[in-house]
């Protein structure tokens, strides 16, 4: 009888569904340094809470994912101009205020360095290590003339608003930053 009791116990265990992870969705719509920072702080912390975190990069936010060596991108002259004036990458983000033609972000980064605040680039790498999903917005890629090769490695497949809404409908936390 003890043998069958053990079998019953095993069967019950096998039927239990694997608990699904709680979900967090962040919409990164800004290319400002002061917005990119909280995006990655919250993304990494959500992952530390065992959540399945997805960050959807759209409009100016997509620039954060540009490769440093992407150079001038796009086919259209307006897209090319855009890539010159909106260099993006984690290194060329502007401050939404007190930018002072780039002096502001430099001073802010120096302060962050002094106070051992992890940089956006460091946090992006931590996020990737922790399995945070990074989704580039397909429409923004088309609009700005950015191909998959112009973006950093380790991203998820480009997606659209529908995918973002489907995910947000199931998510415990959804934020537009």
């Amino acid at each position, binding site marked *: 009888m003890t043998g069958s009791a053990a079998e019953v116990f095993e069967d019950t265990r096998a039927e239990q569904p694997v608990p699904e992870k709680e979900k967090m969705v962040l919409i990164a719509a800004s290319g400002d340094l002061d917005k990119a920072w909280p995006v990655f*702080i919250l993304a*990494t*912390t959500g*992952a*530390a*809470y*065992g959540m399945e975190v997805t960050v959807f990069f759209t409009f100016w936010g997509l620039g954060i994912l540009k490769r440093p060596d992407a150079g001038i991108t796009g086919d259209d002259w307006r897209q090319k101009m855009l890539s010159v004036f909106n260099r993006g990458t984690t290194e060329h983000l502007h401050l939404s205020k007190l930018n002072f033609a780039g002096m502001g972000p430099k001073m802010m980064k120096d302060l962050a360095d002094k*106070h*051992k*605040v*992890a940089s956006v680039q460091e946090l992006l790498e*931590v996020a990737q290590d*922790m399995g945070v999903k990074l989704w580039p917005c397909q429409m923004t890629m088309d609009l700005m003339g950015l191909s998959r090769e112009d973006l950093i490695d380790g991203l998820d497949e480009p997606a659209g608003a529908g995918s973002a809404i489907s995910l947000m409908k199931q998510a415990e936390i959804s934020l537009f930053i």
Partner: protein
Amino acid sequence: MTDHIVDARGLQCPMPVIKLSQAIMAAQSGETVELISTDRGSCSDVPSWANDMGQTLKEQFEKDGEFHFVLVKS
């Protein structure tokens, strides 16, 4: 004696919690993990994280301006 020490001294939010979570994930059930942090925010963040994640915060104390948290992996 703790099984694992996470030295997050000098690091700012969110890194102490990130490093703690990684250490807890890598630890075996029942093992102790001690986090040492100089970020004052850890004093509220670590208990919140432990409570939410179902991990036991066995001990929390301040020594020489550093914050110590001893957790037991569930």
